[in-house]
């Protein structure tokens, strides 16, 4: 599927922290593509490298961390090897990012209007009056009531949901081609979560943006994403179209994730949980990283690292991908 729609192409991206004998690999050789107008969901439990991979994409990993990649292609430009300034120009203009905690992602010293207008000024210019009008229009678009008076509010005068809406307004202020939403709803309560996601998806469709939705909320991904990337311990374990992954997971980890949803435990006494935790820097197992926790692990899994199996666009990193009935193939 090498077409012109391809917006972002990540090829073998690795991020390591620490030096010396035992560097910690937070992100391990991951590759994925995002098409224009596509919603890509990245899921995984805490510590699986979801956020770090997106920070690496934006060039936000600082010194002790090292980023390596064969290529990071955004619209035919390889971001790896660009100077800091050139890269900043591209990422600032074309890629925007929304963070987890809306209460700290707005600068407390300036009014929200001021901050939105700043983003507009840097990337599009225009007189102060035009920028203000545009900022009000943006606040309107993200569904903030009475934007004419809210534009002069300070962040501490807004609720979490409102702040997140303002963040979204700032993100779309310069019409980015790609929006990275790093757990945009984790810090919000459930009713607001639905509204925010709805808003994000609406704007994504209207502006035909690529959207990377990083979350550990499977229900959210099932509902919102076109394609899904499942990460475990810094590696991608399964990729595929959202409906296929949720109908018939190929990787035991994806299956376990879905079994651990409260909905799947209806009628049972206990929730099915995957035993153990994500391996850290010092206890990375040999072979497949999931083998100590995997119910289907064999001797081969304990020695040899599996490659990717399955057709293009629907791959899983397992020797024995599960069949449609959820049983491992032998």
């Amino acid at each position, binding site marked *: 599927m090498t077409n012109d729609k391809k917006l972002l192409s990540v090829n073998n991206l690795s991020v390591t922290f620490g030096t010396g004998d035992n560097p910690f690999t937070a992100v391990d050789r991951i590759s994925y593509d995002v098409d224009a107008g596509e919603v890509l969901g990245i899921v995984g439990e805490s510590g699986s490298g979801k956020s770090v991979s997106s920070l690496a994409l*934006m060039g*936000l990993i600082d*010194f002790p961390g090292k980023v390596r990649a064969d290529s990071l292609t955004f619209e035919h430009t390889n971001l790896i090897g660009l100077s800091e300034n050139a890269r*900043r*120009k591209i*990422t*600032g*203009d074309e*890629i*925007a*990012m929304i*963070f*987890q*905690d809306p209460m*700290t*992602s*707005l*600068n*407390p*010293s*300036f009014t929200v209007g001021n901050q939105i207008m700043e*983003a507009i000024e*840097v*990337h599009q210019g225009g007189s102060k009056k035009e920028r203000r009008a545009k900022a009000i229009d943006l606040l309107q678009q993200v569904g903030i*009531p*009475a934007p004419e*008076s809210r534009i002069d*509010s*300070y962040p501490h*005068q807004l609720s979490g949901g409102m702040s997140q809406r303002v*963040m979204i307004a*700032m993100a779309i202020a310069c019409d980015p081609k790609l929006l990275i939403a790093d757990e945009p709803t984790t810090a919000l309560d459930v009713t607001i979560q639905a509204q925010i996601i709805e808003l994000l998806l609406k704007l994504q469709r209207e502006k035909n943006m690529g959207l990377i939705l990083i979350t550990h909320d499977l229900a959210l991904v099932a509902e919102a994403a076109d394609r899904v990337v499942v990460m475990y311990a810094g590696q991608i374990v399964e990729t595929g179209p959202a409906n296929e992954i949720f109908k018939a997971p190929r990787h035991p980890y994806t299956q376990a994730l879905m079994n651990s949803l409260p909905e799947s435990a209806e009628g049972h006494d206990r929730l099915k949980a995957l035993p153990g935790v994500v391996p850290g820097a010092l206890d990375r197992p040999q072979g497949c990283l999931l083998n100590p926790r995997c119910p289907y692990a064999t001797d081969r899994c304990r020695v040899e690292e599996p490659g990717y199996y399955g057709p293009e666009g629907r791959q899983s990193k397992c020797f024995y991908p599960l069949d449609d009935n959820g049983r491992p193939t032998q």
Partner: protein
Amino acid sequence: MTQQLSAKPMSPLAEFWFYFSQNRGALAGLAFVVFIVLLAVFANFIAPHHPHEQFRDAILVPPVWAEGGMSQYWLGTDGVGRDILSRLIHGARLSLLIGLLIVTLSLIMGICLGLIAGYFGGFVDTAIMRFADILLSMPALLLAIAIVAILGPSIVNSSLALSLVYLPHYVRLTRASVLSEINKDYVVSSRVAGAGSLRLMFITILPNCLAPLIVQATLGFSNAILDMAALGFLGLGAQPPLPEWGSMLATAREFIQSAWWVVTFPGLIILLTVLAFNLMGDGLRDALDPKLKQ
């Protein structure tokens, strides 16, 4: 239908004033500071005499209410017949100017060094902070005296010396605030939007670090006045005949036994000014620190 949805939120200034005015001590401090500032600004019109003018026929005249006082010298005269009230009023000018100069100098340098240390970290951070530690490890006044002794005694030199002495406080305070702010998402989001280092340091981060710095600067103001008076008293600050409060005290030393007013009034005004600035600083801290707000 065009109903206003919410009452207009309190402007930051109104909110600040609301909290500040709750504190009576701070209000009293502010009132006295305003009074001193007015005295300093209009010294030429308020002071009854020229501060340097010596009335040879009225040496060591006691204050007007004491026995032998003269109505044209309200607070009496000193050993060479200069009007103490006029000298105090003109001295306010000098003291405030020096305080302002010292605080501004050390604040600007401290903010720059602290921002650089906190923002870049690593070797730069270590170098700057160890330098600050070295400055802090010496007694403040002793260090100031040493610097003045090298540069030569004058108001400008002693201001420079004192700004250097106060520098570490501002560096540490700025660095600490920067470290707590720099990892917040709004800084990262500015970086994502393409802000460069200078913009991040001075426009994104600095405004959020200002509250503790304002408080420290107000309290530092009183320290500066006090230490300047000490240097003046030791003869290393303002040189006679400049009407600086500390050097007025120094020249009055010989009259402690015989003419109490020559020593008392400069001492009293130093005390009151320092107290006023401290009270005001406390009020500022209460009003600016969100942790102390109800």
